[in-house]
């Protein structure tokens, strides 16, 4: 077996376990390359079908190309597409772009809060109507008790402590110090009422694995990842006010792989184009504890 075959098999195994154990299961799809690979792995696991909804948190500041791409794939692949957002904050202009919040506060408001409340069903969810391609209010308000997330262990220190199945308490908090044991592919699939479990099928993948798999499987990704002739491209996607392209002339997946293997990005962290990470020392760690992906 090749390395890619091995990690693919493990991810598929995890997705199938999640599907069996959680009746209210959802997959977070950020539209980025990682969660798109994860979505592809779900199609692998379930032979072309995706038997759970995909949840996307819309901050209203996503690069428009990302939303177009999301809706196109949702239609083509017949996905049960759900979106949620912090409507109140957006209406009141409580955001970083509006000058009212810092970057980290804005992430918490538009992403974490929206995510937590969309997952719990407290705030409205919108579901894509495949007949029209438009989003309509979703009638299902049950909390998702299993949430599949595309975190990778190589992304940053704190994630390398994760489990494939990681419990979160009622407030979506993560008890880093007291995680359940995980051995021999037996995962924590039972949980107390009110709590939920985060499932991480991509924990063993590296950024390079992701791109090599995209190349091998010919998975469609947002063109923002490629240089469109301006000598820059996005390495990691987010909201436009806080995500900046990196200098690179990689025009396709092959060139990105080459660049990662040999080029200048070899030893530079992937999220270096994300402004909110730099704002305070443990910013991302704090966000995670509070429930951000």
């Amino acid at each position, binding site marked *: 077996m090749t390395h890619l075959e091995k990690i693919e098999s493990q991810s598929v195994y995890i997705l199938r376990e999640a599907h069996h154990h959680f009746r209210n299961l959802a997959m977070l799809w950020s539209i980025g390359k990682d969660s798109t690979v994860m979505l592809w792995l779900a199609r692998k696991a379930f032979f072309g079908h995706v038997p759970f909804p995909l949840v996307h948190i819309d901050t209203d500041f996503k690069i428009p190309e990302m939303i177009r791409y999301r809706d196109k794939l949702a239609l083509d692949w017949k996905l049960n597409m759900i979106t949620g957002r912090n409507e109140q904050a957006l209406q009141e202009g409580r955001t970083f772009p509006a000058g009212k919040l810092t970057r980290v506060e804005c992430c918490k408001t538009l992403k974490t809060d929206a995510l937590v409340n969309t997952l719990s069903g407290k705030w409205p969810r919108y579901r894509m109507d495949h007949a029209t391609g438009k989003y309509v209010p979703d009638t299902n308000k049950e909390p998702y008790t299993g949430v599949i997330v595309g975190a990778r262990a190589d992304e940053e220190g704190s994630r390398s*402590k994760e489990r494939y199945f990681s419990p979160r308490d009622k407030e979506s908090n993560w008890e880093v110090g007291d995680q359940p044991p995980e*051995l021999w592919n037996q995962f924590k699939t039972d949980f107390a009422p009110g709590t939920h479990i985060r499932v991480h099928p991509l924990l063993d993948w590296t950024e390079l694995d992701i791109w090599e798999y995209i190349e091998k499987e010919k998975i469609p990704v947002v063109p923002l990842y490629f240089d469109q002739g301006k000598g820059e491209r996005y390495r990691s996607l987010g909201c436009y006010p806080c995500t900046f392209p990196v200098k690179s002339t990689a025009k396709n997946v092959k060139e990105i792989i080459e660049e990662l293997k040999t080029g200048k990005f070899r030893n530079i962290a992937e999220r270096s184009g994300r402004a909110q990470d730099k704002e305070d020392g443990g910013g991302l760690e704090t966000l995670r504890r509070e429930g951000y992906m």
Partner: protein
Amino acid sequence: MNIVIVGHVDHGKSTLVGRLLADTGSLPEGKLQQVRDECQRTAKPFEYAFLLDALKDEQSQGITIDTARVFFKSKKREYILIDAPGHIEFLKNMVSGAARAEAALLVIDAEEGIQENSRRHGYLLSMLGIRQVAVCVNKMDRVGYKQEVFDRIQKEYRVFLKEIDLEPRAFIPLSALEGENLITPSKKLPWYRGPAVLEMLDSFEKSPDISARPFRMPVQGIYKFTEDEDTRRIVAGRVESGSLSVGDSVVFLPSGKRSQIKTIEAFSAPKRTSVTAGHSTGVTLTEQVYVNRGDVMCRVKEPLPGVSSLLRVKLFWMGKRPMVLDRPYKLKVAAAQVSVRLKKIERVIDASELKPAAKKEIGRHDVAQCVLQAASAVAFDLMHDLEATGRFVIVDEVDIAGGGIILEMIEDGHDALRRQVTEREQKWDFSVVEPEERTKRYGHRPAFVLLTGKVGVDKKTIAKELEKRLFGLHGAATYFLGMGNLLRGLNTDVEQHRLERHEHVRRMGEVAHLFLDAGLIVVATGSNINDAELSELHEMTSREGMVVVNVGPNGFKSAVVDLNLDPVAGTEKNVRNILQLLKDRKILRDA
């Protein structure tokens, strides 16, 4: 390759890992300097551990609380180093880390010598089936790089490893802090002829190819997705050992159902006619048989797994409360899950001393040899034959609390009945409506809830109230199966005599089985049911769906009861407890 680093707390694991990363140039640019600067700013001496401890609260506690995974590369290959915590409180984290590894480095402080966790970790490595172990005698700088110190530790630890049946690949003297004997042989250790740490890592072998062993595929699920007129009924799982080809005759255990492989399915991949160990796959069958999740698919012509409800095992316990004789637990072997109880403790090894002790329970961090009684049969291999189907975990309520390996199968005397049930299933004329479709429609999985207890204990009131609640509140398709109704109807040809009791129980089981097949939650009561009758009912209704609730004094000797109720608690509370159990079992929706 996955390598785990274990050892007693403060013996230098993090330093070893940090130093390996630094000296092989595997750190992100500027990272080392950033941590050094941070230490200077806070006036703390620099530690390699800080490099790894990316988490805030960890740094304040100063101990590795969880397994951290770091990536690094030698000239030969890529590694994932798993830095497992040495502190006793975090044993479950150490186990989680070590369970993923193909080889291990066990670190011992030359100055402090062998400590409690040096032994405990050695023991766990051997139980986890990690055969490639190198012992690193660290902090040689503290003992003047003296050979006597190294030799003494080596001698003492070898004796211990021999006892637990573990043959180490090497003993390596080193100083992680000073980087001696890490990447290249050290001039300060002229008396040492063996490999440096990196050379040792490069000499570990990849895990042996298990494609040539007997075929095992634990069934993770049976998929029938109806969208897009997909008519395939796919049995999905990962091939844990062996290989499989289209046309092979297969048997599913413990149910014993047989069929033949029609196709091997895959999404967006070239068509294939065979599949080997390691791959997650799915197959369709020529002849439809109803397979349960947890069944193990095997090839008919190969050595088959054992099938029994009695197992002799060795396990280690990580639960906050001890494992005791009369509490029900869940046993998970590969994809199978059954209720289980601890039938007999044969030997407990006190973890700190690792000496046998006479104990009535298995405490936290203990290792024990014991006999487990499962509610119904499971299919399994012995650990030394096949690993993936030879090990298990024990779940206490909602937490994985123990793990272990299967040493031996014990006959449970139900083979004849099992054959009979297999025959029934093999010839069963199946409905075109799939069980999964019924589950979707009714919003719950089928179940047989049997309330047992002594004559005179009121079970019927609880049973009927349960039926009412299920039907009303949960909108369940449910039915109270009255034993009296059977006696005066279906069973009029059978005398109401003690000798005929067996036939009555058999008919009750078969009727319950029909209701399960129809997707219902059937509720029944039975007085003075004994151990043998209960396991027969389990066999007849074929596992997953049976839930045993005992009311009042528990008269069973070894049978597994899923829930014990006290009649004094009142019907309301008792019914609520049963409903919660049905949720825990994922029979009712979890919301």
